[in-house]
């Protein structure tokens, strides 16, 4: 198809454990103001932003219609606004559709989540399960992921040492990312001694509670030069939904991710991801997901995840230079945080973690537990 849309600006607040000093309205405004300033974009009905796409969640905001409290701070007063209630990567896919459809040519895309607000994020994700069977059993996104972790690790030769290595690497990478959550540097032994949350997932294997907000300005190819000199292009998107009951699914098959990735590759004309794509940003809520999702996007042979870690695969393929979701982004915003890293890298603005002239990047997001729904975006310089 060969059509693409531009990301002309990206702004974010720093990922923090508890932004107790600000409402999410303030966090979003901190992202919007610099976008307006740097791009000069307006909300003019002819030439400016007529549609804003937001990403947030009613349960995590404890609020019916979580986007109703933010209309003013995302500039949507007397403009359109539509809320993506899934991982933010799909918001980018939808924004792309809005522009390619011809209906919009400039779209503002923003998202927020404060995991710190609820007594327990596990209580929230437990609510994603049906009230009759799974919910009373106490399943939440963490404990469900533990099933998958056990099954995958067994099959792919991934052990506790590998997971420790993944966590240590994630924190080292995140330390070079000024927007990453500031976590303590840990040793492999510390990881291996951290308590189990849900066997085999240890506390340090699971992403910590985080608050964050972001904003991006997207536009059609024709208008990109009005807003910036070096846009990043979105050239491919794909997503896929797996079934619901864990018993119905082959939980180590990467069914949904393989489909999502191949759809994105086909749209972007990517034939050999390993060769053509310079960096991969994967939403790894838990350490075991880094090798598993890497298999899913086709850069590791199936069930060779353990070997891949041992051979330094994540560094060779430039996976999660940002530190990944594992270092801390809020639920639903993992995908946008991955896009942010790709944005800095492709523009050559990634500071100490800058790769040498990358041209193509993959960003991935996941909704639900055990990778029930995946979304993949291909970004290009």
């Amino acid at each position, binding site marked *: *198809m060969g*059509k693409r849309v531009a990301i002309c600006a990206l702004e974010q607040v720093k990922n923090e454990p508890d932004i107790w000093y600000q409402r999410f309205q303030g966090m979003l405004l901190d992202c919007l103001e610099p976008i307006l300033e740097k791009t000069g974009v307006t909300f003019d*009905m002819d030439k400016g932003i007529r549609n804003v796409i937001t990403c947030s*969640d*009613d*349960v995590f905001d*404890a*609020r*019916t*219609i979580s*986007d*109703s*409290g*933010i*209309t*003013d701070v995302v500039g*949507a*007063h*007397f*403009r*359109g*606004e*539509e*809320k*993506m*209630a*899934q991982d933010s990567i*799909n918001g980018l*896919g*939808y924004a792309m*559709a*809005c*522009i*390619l*459809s*011809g*209906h919009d*040519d400039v779209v503002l895309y923003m998202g927020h989540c404060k995991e710190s607000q609820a007594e327990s994020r596990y209580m*929230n994700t437990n*609510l*994603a*399960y*049906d*009230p009759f069977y799974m919910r009373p059993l106490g399943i939440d996104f963490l404990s469900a992921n533990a099933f998958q972790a056990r099954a995958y690790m067994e099959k792919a030769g991934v052990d506790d040492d590998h997971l420790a290595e993944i966590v240590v690497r994630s924190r080292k990478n995140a330390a070079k990312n000024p927007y990453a959550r500031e976590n303590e540097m840990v040793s492999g032994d510390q990881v291996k001694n951290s308590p189990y949350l849900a066997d085999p997932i240890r506390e340090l294997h699971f992403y910590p509670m985080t608050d964050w907000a972001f904003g991006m300005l997207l536009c059609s190819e024709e208008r990109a030069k009005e807003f910036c000199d070096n846009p990043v292009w979105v050239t491919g*998107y*794909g*997503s*896929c*939904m*797996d*079934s*619901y009951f864990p018993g119905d699914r082959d939980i180590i098959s990467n069914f*949904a991710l393989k*489909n*999502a990735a191949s*759809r994105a590759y086909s*749209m972007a004309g990517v034939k050999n991801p390993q060769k053509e794509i310079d960096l991969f940003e994967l939403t790894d809520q838990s350490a075991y997901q880094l090798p598993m999702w890497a298999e899913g996007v086709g850069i590791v042979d199936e069930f060779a995840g353990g070997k891949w870690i041992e051979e330094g695969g994540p560094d060779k393929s430039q996976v999660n230079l940002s530190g990944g979701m594992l270092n801390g982004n809020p639920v639903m915003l993992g995908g946008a945080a991955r896009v942010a890293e790709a944005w800095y890298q492709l523009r050559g603005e990634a500071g100490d973690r800058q790769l040498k002239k990358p041209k193509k990047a993959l960003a991935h997001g996941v*909704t639900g537990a055990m990778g*029930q*729904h995946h979304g993949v975006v291909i970004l290009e310089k």
Partner: protein
Amino acid sequence: MAKKKKNRNVAIVGVGQTQYSSHREDVNQPEMIHEAVRLALADAGITIDDVDAIVHGNMELFEMIHQPDLWHVLGTGGYGKDSFRITTGGTTGATLACAADNLVASEMYDVVMTVGFEKLQEGHTTGGITNMADPLWSRQLQTGALTGSTGYKMEKEFGEERANRAAMMYRIIMDKHACLNHNSHRSFGLDFDQMDELMENSPRLVGDLRLIHMCSQSDGCCVVIFASEKKAKKMAKPPVWVRDHITVHREETFNIFGFDENYPVPMTHRFAAEQLFARNGIDSPVDYFDVFEMYDPSGWWGADWMREFFLFENDEHLKLIEEKEIMIDGKMPINPSGGVTAANPIGATALVRVAEAALQVRGDAGGHQIPGDVNHALASGFGGTMWTVLMMLERELSW
């Protein structure tokens, strides 16, 4: 706003609706959704394999299911497909339709199925709507979506008698339409000679907003399938073309306004209508459209909002009601389906407007089909803090 050229044409090719009802204990959520999905596929004459992507929407806190599309995949048929979940409160259903239009027009997908649903029986609706208010202040003051201020405003402008009669007349007409629609959750069999009695006896909710005026709390699901021009022309039923759509939101602070003529407050409904009609070259919407499926949460709002959507200045909207011209065989039929007071499964409600408008264009509305041709239809969605969505449907690709 300048007219933007659509990348390619999109049509509605299939509609499925469950019976709307106050209670559906006989099915769980995915099962209820599945009923509408099957009907929509049958209507389009396709199977689930022909669908490329699903767009799902409702409001999480009404049933207290977090990211319910994950569970509902059992009913939507979304397994293995691209899938989105897009929600905007009461406008959700209309937003689903806009999203499907965008997704198909973008050429990213050829056939997109939208799924709007709510099972309000499983939660506390007014409590759920109150949860919409800011927890730091207004949540402690609010009462769901109820306000008597529209009645107050209309009474000030047109006199108590005329305003109350117009709102009740509007309501009775909606009920007469609801009686023609076998999917209605509520159809009372009201008659015009009951007007005085209802104005006196129906219990008050807020001010002159009475129980009879207000929309119901319903269970139900609506599914609408959208397809590209090429695919649509091969489907079982004639395509209904999506011409254009617009979404207009407004700020959250929700002061009751309009009491001081020196400080007029622009209305989203009017703004949306002005923008949409201007960019499509429609000078007189009341003459152009053959039917309007309006998201009318109460008799008062329905009566008042006609003025905004049709860009009237004076009392033309009241006259249309008083002369019964909004009835199914009138000059400007409004909600032949019975509208939102007949059935209100909130996440589906605005999609039902689009679905019903499409059925009218296709001539397939059955018992509540408008006599005569329906070439141009308008559907609206309402939600949030006076948010509005409008979608225009056409019989011919002629614009």
